């Protein structure tokens, strides 16, 4: 456990660009050397609101993508939905302003050593880290299919260049405004029974992750999901971000989603106990 955030550092970084993409902001930050240690699934904790803000807690954002090439050296991309006071502040920051951030944090996606058939499922802006993951999986010789979903077209995040790193991309919206009308889980049972999937990587709302776990249970499909719990510290010291996880002996442990996650084995999460009283171990 103490090795998990071994490479994380607190740095002051500069915003290189901040663009609106649909309902989200795509923010590119010059972070320097730390990109070398960022892996798909890692997140960053950013101080928000400026020095005299009444917002005292950092905000956690999934790292969408990093690059150590290009004219600026190490850069990190975030896809931010401006839905709370902290994320709104971040979305209003101008090019050239500084950010105090801690990264990389958390347990990243596990990358198979052998080529496998990988299915990447993203809900809303949860798709952001999946494109970087797709590139890594492709480089390992995996077949990479992707399914994205959201309530409506403006909430789908699917950059054109990202589409190049996948073998296929299917989109579902609940209102049918783009792609097929329905949910990302609709095609899963048949894909699994056809043997078209070995590993599912998912990122999105908890309800979606739980639904995927329900479908993959009692199958051989591995489900690695990036969970979302509210985090006060992001570095493992506050115990606010816990999820009930079933240990091998069947008992429950409350694990920190910031350190033992955000990527967890979907089959070990006791989804039915999330937000419930698990009281006795």
């Amino acid at each position: 456990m103490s090795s998990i955030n071994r490479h994380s550092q607190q740095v002051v970084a500069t915003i290189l660009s901040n663009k609106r993409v649909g309902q989200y902001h795509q923010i590119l930050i010059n972070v320097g050397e730390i990109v070398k240690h960022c892996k798909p699934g890692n997140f960053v904790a950013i101080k928000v609101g400026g020095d005299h803000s009444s917002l005292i807690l950092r905000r956690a954002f999934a790292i969408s993508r990093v690059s150590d090439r290009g004219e600026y050296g190490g850069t990190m991309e975030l896809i931010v939905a401006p839905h709370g006071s902290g994320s709104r502040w971040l979305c209003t920051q101008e090019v050239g302003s500084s950010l105090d951030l801690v990264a990389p944090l958390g347990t990243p996606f596990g990358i198979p050593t052998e080529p496998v058939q990988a299915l990447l499922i993203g809900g809303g802006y949860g798709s952001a880290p999946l494109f970087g993951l797709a590139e890594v999986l492709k480089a390992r010789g995996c077949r990479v299919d992707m399914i994205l979903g959201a309530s409506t077209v403006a909430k789908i995040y699917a950059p054109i260049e990202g589409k190049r790193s996948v073998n296929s991309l299917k989109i579902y919206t609940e209102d049918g405004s783009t792609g097929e009308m329905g949910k990302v889980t609709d095609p899963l049972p048949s894909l699994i029974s056809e043997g078209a999937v070995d590993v599912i990587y998912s990122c999105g709302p908890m309800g979606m992750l739980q639904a995927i776990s329900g479908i993959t249970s009692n199958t051989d499909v591995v489900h690695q999901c990036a969970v979302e719990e509210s985090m006060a510290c992001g570095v493992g010291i506050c115990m606010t971000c816990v999820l009930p996880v079933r240990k091998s002996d069947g008992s429950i442990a409350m694990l920190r989603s910031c350190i033992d996650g955000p990527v967890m084995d979907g089959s070990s999460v006791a989804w039915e106990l999330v937000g419930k009283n698990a009281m006795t171990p």
Partner: protein
Amino acid sequence: MRESSFDFSTTLGSAWFPAPVFTASGCASSGRELSQFFPLDEIGAVVTKSVMLKERLGRPTPRMAETPSGMLNSIGLQGPGIDAFLAKDVPWLVENKARVIVSIAGETVDEYGVLARRLRSVPGISAVEVNISCPNVDNRGLVFACDPESAKAVVESVRRTLAGDLPIIVKLSPDVTNIASIARVVVDAGADALALINTLLGMVINTDTMFPHLGGKTGGLSGPAIRPVAVRAIFQVHEALPKVPILGMGGVRTGRDAFEMILAGASGVSVGTASFGNPTALIDVQNELKQLLISKGFNSVQEAVGFAHRPSKANP
């Protein structure tokens, strides 16, 4: 005052610390996580998360809500239990040269005694913090610090067990009418020092769901929002019991905040919630505090403790 001759050390009862800045219980987990950001032996001591007799899963999520300049938490004393804690966490801290203050919490008076007995012969512990003030328990009756009789019984039980082995620091709740009178009771019962303050009981209602936001409904308020309450509590207790050392806490984020608590009467300062927003907050607070004390002309931390209580020039 030159930096080299400035005395930054402090004492709580018979325990000596090279610096007066400590972690706050429950805000540094087992210590390993923060050691990623600075060496733990640079601060005064690590105060560990309150440990109970048995493993405990704590309260359901959501466990936190940010509030203006503060936050509510309802962890509910999640922890591994004293056996696993002594087997894994304490040896690791000692190996990493951290000074250790172990915080204990019991469900009954007897449990505090049993926990104290388990600590008696453990090498590397500097002091015991007796948490009688955690608000995140199902039965508010468990808040021993809100009732003088129960507070007294707990401290006597720990005192009897520990004899003179380890200094006893008793942590009090600000959610009482007269904190100085509770302080007096626990000092008479055998406390060597006091920790002030634990969180204040609070609630946030989610206006979308129209239910209390926290899984545990109520939670403990911490962070800069509570600092004036903490300064007041420290000031009142130091005024009533000037000889009893105080470990001050509640919303300390900068060296200036720590200095304020020392002026009010604290011999040491714990930094809790500030570490969530800044993993190196302890080091920043410590460096700023030292510079501030030196620039104000103090020769030692001790000289500044309770300095705000001196007679004013206008009416001596």
